[in-house]
């Protein structure tokens, strides 16, 4: 659905590039996360998708079109196929909720009867039918973002871009908005690109994720892989922010290992079984049990002390548990 081919973007000649040779693809119907600190190039990346920015070099292909090659009308047509929601909602303060949702349809010159019917349908979908005549200033943050979502869906797009869409919301509202985004992805088959600086957002809704640092993609893959086995220092930092500092194993005896359980293995009493069978002793140094979208997972950092350590590791692996050796101080 979306492909970046060696895309670079430099704003001023000689300045540090905002994006530097980024290549990635987003498949139709997936939720793709882009995570990075502020200034990593996330905003530039998302703005290239519907041509609010043009690449300095490389190509951005969206829904079969090379964005840079589209003329004014082609770009307008593309923007009707790519909806966008924003961190600060960007609603028109002088228009009512219904008028805001109707705005993209009005811009497209749709007939009034169609605009009215479609607006009512969209407001019902985001649960704001009762607020149609209110002005944005009378709404809560979560309600404003729902208006933003309804507005972004007005022209029936295939892609929804979320630019830090939950960063200005409290945790409970964030949950509701992410839930809505997930539902839209499933029910409408929307392809979603979501940029954020919070790993938690990625964990809740994304299928795949790219980690951006200084304009480069330093790591990308399925959320499970990046979240459970981050390869880059940047990804590890984001995972730590989401899960808290793990206990460090400094000064402990024995072999330090990290066990990763996924899916059903998470709920089996593997640890006890292995300990009884091999006589191994263990101390738990850190751990987390959570969900990545629908998949439960657990990750435990252990110090294996007495007993047959090699046999224990083999048994863990036979039981579908991934075992990674870690050096003291590295943590989870």
């Amino acid at each position, binding site marked *: 659905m979306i492909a970046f081919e060696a895309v670079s973007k430099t704003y001023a000649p000689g300045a540090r590039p905002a994006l530097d040779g980024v290549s990635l693809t987003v498949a139709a119907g997936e939720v793709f996360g882009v995570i990075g600190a502020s200034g990593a190039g996330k905003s530039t990346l998302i703005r290239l998708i519907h041509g609010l920015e043009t690449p300095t070099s490389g190509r951005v292909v969206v829904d079969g079109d090379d964005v840079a090659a589209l003329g004014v009308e082609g770009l307008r047509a593309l923007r*009707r196929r790519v909806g966008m929601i924003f961190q600060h909602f*960007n609603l*028109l*303060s002088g*228009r009512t909720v219904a008028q805001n949702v109707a705005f993209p349809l009005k*811009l497209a010159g749709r007939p009034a009867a169609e605009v009215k019917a479609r607006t009512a349908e969209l407001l019902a979908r985001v649960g704001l039918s009762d607020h149609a005549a209110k*002005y944005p200033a009378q709404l809560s943050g979560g309600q404003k973002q729902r208006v933003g979502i309804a*507005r972004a869906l007005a*022209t029936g797009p295939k892609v929804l871009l979320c630019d830090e869409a939950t960063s200005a919301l409290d945790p409970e509202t964030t949950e509701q908005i992410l839930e809505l985004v997930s539902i839209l992805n499933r029910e409408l088959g929307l392809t979603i690109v979501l940029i954020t600086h919070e790993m938690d957002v990625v964990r809740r809704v994304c299928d795949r994720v790219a980690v951006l640092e200084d304009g480069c993609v330093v790591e990308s893959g399925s959320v499970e892989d990046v979240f459970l086995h981050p390869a880059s220092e940047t990804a590890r930092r984001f995972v730590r922010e989401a899960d808290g500092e793990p206990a460090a194993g400094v000064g402990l005896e024995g072999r330090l290992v990290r066990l990763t359980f996924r899916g059903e293995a998470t709920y089996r009493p593997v640890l006890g079984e292995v300990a009884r069978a091999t006589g191994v002793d263990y101390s738990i140094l850190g751990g987390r049990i959570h969900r990545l979208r629908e998949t439960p997972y657990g990750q435990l950092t252990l110090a294996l002390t007495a007993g047959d350590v090699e046999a224990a590791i083999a048994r863990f692996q036979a039981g579908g548990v991934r075992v990674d050796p870690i050096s003291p101080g590295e943590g989870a």
Partner: protein
Amino acid sequence: MMGNIDWTEIGQATLDTLAMLGGSMVLTVLLGLPLGVILFLTGRGQMLENRLANGLLSLLVNILRSVPFVILLIVMIPLTVALVGTSLGVAGAIPPLVAGAAPFFARLVETALREVDRGVIEASFAMGARRRQVVLWALLPEAMPGVIAAATVTAIALVSYTAMAGVVGAGGLGDLAIRFGYQRFQTDVMVVTVVLLLVLVQVLQMIGDRVVRRVSHR
């Protein structure tokens, strides 16, 4: 106490002032609003950024604004005669009033447009708006409270300009105040004209504030 007052004359002068104010206000908005929009759009980082056009317009506005209005009235007399056939009366006052107020209003409009959240403009483009649609359907409506407040300030400035226009034979309350109140020491005429001007300014400000409240939904 009120022996010098000719109410018919005062009534006529009031009507003249209102005619000057109304006529020049309409033209000021018609000229100043587009001028302000162009000043904004050709400015740095805006959608029609054009340093030359912006520089020239800015210079014109600054020149007109830096000439004291009393001087502008006199300097413009040949142009006024060419435009409306006379430099006297209500008609003769309107060209200099517009020349004085339109650049002022344009600058205030430009400032009001700058206050509009850039995110809203970006969102409009992201929804597939043309530039024209962004300006007419997003930028100006979002700036409307500021533009109305600017119009109120301009209308009040025009009231004092009309009084000055009395100096070059425009008529109106200012002319009355100078000819009778000042030159003939008829203090009562002076007091009445000043009170009338004060009431006019109060009413304009009240109307302006009320309209701003109505169009503002922040």
